[in-house]
């Protein structure tokens, strides 16, 4: 165990230039959304996995991501009461809390996490990638608004490959359904060259993102690929992929990390520099947002850094080679949708995680299983066992939730993590002897 006295949580959070830049981007987007309806800009709500941000930009529409609103509300400790509001209005305690946080927010006047009013959507673009709950979510939201819903059905990669039939199906939907509906709703004619231009920007940002995520292969790792990773994926998983702002953000971030590497530094934590790297972990599953900093602190106080995670792949698996392709715009959008992490089969997820453990020289795997998300959680126990068997590295399993504070028990998680670190320490000591 780390014998140094744990740092006291400080109220002042350390931020780098890239973080400040991202904050400005996000705040500006919320502000923009707050005036969309009044200023006559059309609004499309859509989900992170399989989002078509570049395509949406071709229609000059504002993009609203309900999942981001839910997680931001979680981070700002607002989600608990929103979830209870949704439950008071008839939602079951059993179902995904992202949905309930969103519905509760709508019920309470649709004031977004930053305090800005969120707009009524003109279109709900239901990218049905990697999660069945998305479908119910937008059917429920549709009940509250008079707006169109576009279903983009993305088949599941059950056998670990994208077949031509799957790709054709998605492309056909884009051509015959998604694009014509967006043209009609926005009044803007689709221009494929404009799409290509955005995809070119995406490619650049994607190259940088992959470089950033893979920098964790170094020892010590200059980044935390889960807690820090949540910030790194922010722009590219949401309303900014394809924009110059995102490209610049990733350039800045890459520069910062390059410098950290040169200086032999570990990740930046909310309390400053990381200190000595003791454990390298791979994390499967989502973060907990209601107690995000507290959770992260349990790691950095023990010298544990996350070197790879699957959560940073929910909005696109780029590190295995995929890039948006301006030469094949619609096909590459289809492949993007089909390739998001939760759309992969369980065997494919196991292979990916096992490879991460090897490639990133990790000491073990942590599964954070969340009550909300069947898409992630159903099957994780078997995944853990299989990965332990294949890699010989020990795993740990904890249970929390994304945005429901009732399911985060700090004491339980801390106990579990402490005994896991103890076990890793003993294992490392035996190996060193």
């Amino acid at each position, binding site marked *: 165990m780390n014998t140094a006295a744990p740092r006291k949580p400080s109220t002042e959070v350390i931020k780098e230039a890239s973080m400040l830049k991202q904050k400005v981007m996000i705040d500006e987007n919320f502000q923009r959304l707050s005036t969309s309806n009044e200023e006559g800009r059309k609004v499309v709500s859509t989900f992170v996995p399989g989002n078509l941000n570049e395509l949406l930009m071709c229609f000059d529409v504002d993009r609203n991501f309900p999942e981001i609103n839910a997680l931001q509300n979680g981070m700002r400790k607002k989600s608990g009461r929103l979830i209870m509001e949704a439950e008071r209005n008839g939602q079951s305690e059993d179902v995904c809390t992202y949905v309930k946080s969103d519905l509760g927010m709508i019920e309470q006047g649709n004031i977004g996490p930053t305090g800005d009013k969120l707009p009524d959507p003109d279109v709900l673009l239901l990218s049905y990638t990697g999660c069945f709950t998305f479908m119910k979510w937008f059917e429920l939201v549709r009940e509250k608004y008079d707006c169109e819903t576009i279903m983009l059905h993305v088949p599941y990669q059950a*056998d670990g490959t994208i077949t031509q039939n799957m790709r054709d199906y998605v492309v056909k939907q884009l051509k015959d359904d998604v694009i014509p509906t967006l043209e009609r709703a926005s009044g803007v004619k689709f221009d494929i060259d404009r799409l290509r231009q955005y995809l070119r920007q995406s490619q650049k940002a994607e190259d940088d993102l992959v470089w950033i995520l893979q920098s964790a292969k170094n020892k010590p790792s200059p980044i935390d690929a889960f807690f820090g990773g949540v910030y790194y994926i922010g722009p590219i998983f949401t309303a900014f992929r394809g924009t110059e702002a995102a490209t610049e953000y990733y350039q800045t971030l890459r520069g910062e990390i390059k410098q950290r590497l040169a200086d032999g530094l570990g990740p930046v934590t909310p309390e400053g520099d990381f200190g000595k790297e003791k454990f390298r972990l791979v994390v499967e599953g989502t973060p907990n947002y209601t107690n995000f900093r507290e959770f992260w602190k349990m790691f950095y106080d023990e010298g544990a850094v996350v070197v790879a995670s699957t959560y940073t792949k929910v909005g696109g698996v780029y590190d295995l080679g995929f890039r948006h392709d301006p030469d094949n715009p619609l096909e590459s959008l289809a492949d993007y949708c089909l390739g998001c992490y939760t759309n992969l089969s369980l065997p494919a997820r196991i292979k990916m995680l096992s490879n991460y453990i090897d490639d990133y020289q990790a000491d073990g795997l942590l599964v954070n299983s969340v009550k909300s998300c069947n898409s992630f959680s159903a099957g994780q126990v078997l995944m853990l066992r299989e990965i332990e068997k294949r890699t010989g590295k020990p795993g740990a399993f904890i249970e929390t939730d994304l945005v429901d504070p009732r399911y985060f028990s700090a004491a339980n998680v801390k106990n579990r993590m402490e005994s896991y670190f103890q076990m890793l320490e003993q294992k490392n000591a035996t190996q060193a002897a």
Partner: protein
Amino acid sequence: MTVQEIVDRCQALFDDLDFNAVKDWKAANPGGKAIGYLPIYVPREIIHAAGMLPVGIFGGGDQLEVIHGDAYYQSYICRIPRSTIELGLTGRLDSLDGMLFPSICDVIRNLSGMWQLLFKDKYVKYFDVPQTYRDEIGGAFYIHEMQALREDLGKLGGHEITDEDLQNSIAVYNENRQVINELYDLRAKQPWQAPTSEIYLLLRAGMVLPVEEHTQLLRDYMDAVQAEERPRRDNCRVVVNGVFCEQPPLGLIKSLEMAGCYVVDDDFLLVTRWLIDDVPTTGDPMENLSKAFLHHSAATSAKFEPNKADKGRFLINQVRNSGAEGVVFAAPSFCDPALLDRPMLQEALNRDDIPFTAFKYAENTGQMQAIREQAGTFADSIKLWSA
């Protein structure tokens, strides 16, 4: 056969968690293969056309002791995947040569991957279905999916499945559905003659028996019940909704009836009634099956409803057509599809002034007292309200 004899036979099939009916079929059909499928829908016509026995797997019920299965799942995931795993790991599904996992929710979806890992020597297929309903888009995709299944099963069975094979099988399943629809009509008219606790067992028998035998069994039952005068009770008439995947224990269905509710329509074992009309037996069979799926199939939580105004329409029609007076929403605990759909369906019922009550269950729910009381109060309120 008497009603009792038929019901006893179905009960024995239902209780038999070793699937001896499948073993018997295989013994009588040397070299024959059996293919399992999970809820809610697979085109069983294709399995049948391959000369194979389709076998519906609907979890372990309340009689199976789940030991291994629980170790694979967190407490906040429904019961059916764990009891299905239990059935598999204890060798009870060894007589199956393959398993189909239809596109119904993330739990079943991920279970398909678990099956690939746990039962490496078996044929495993996740069977995707379209959520867009235009023939040239969703239909084209679906025909491909069905074609892939057709080719896989052709290989597994050692012979190609011809169009004629498929047309014959379509006819056989059309007949089965027609008879089930007649049975449902009979129950809607005279629920005391054909109580749901029996109808349910009859439908479950269709999950393990060859379809031809099942059709005959249904006919025998209808003949037998019509020959008997059975006691009529002063029950209210309800549609049960939400029971399309994990099954409630039989005791729960009986409790509803004992509490004063005649179930006159439901979404049990939807695979038997998924397609609403007959599928044409001439022309391209794949196209026919596809069109039936896209344009003439049941509504359920696992299916996208493209038109807001039509949300709940199917359920309301069930209520109207069966002459029901209310709806009982019964959903498995932790079932996202059913539980998220519920408020929308309830809203639609509210608009049409149709009363409802709602509860959750698990396949191994043991205590029926609370449910019986709730259903009883609901039945009483309906009777008061309509008096």
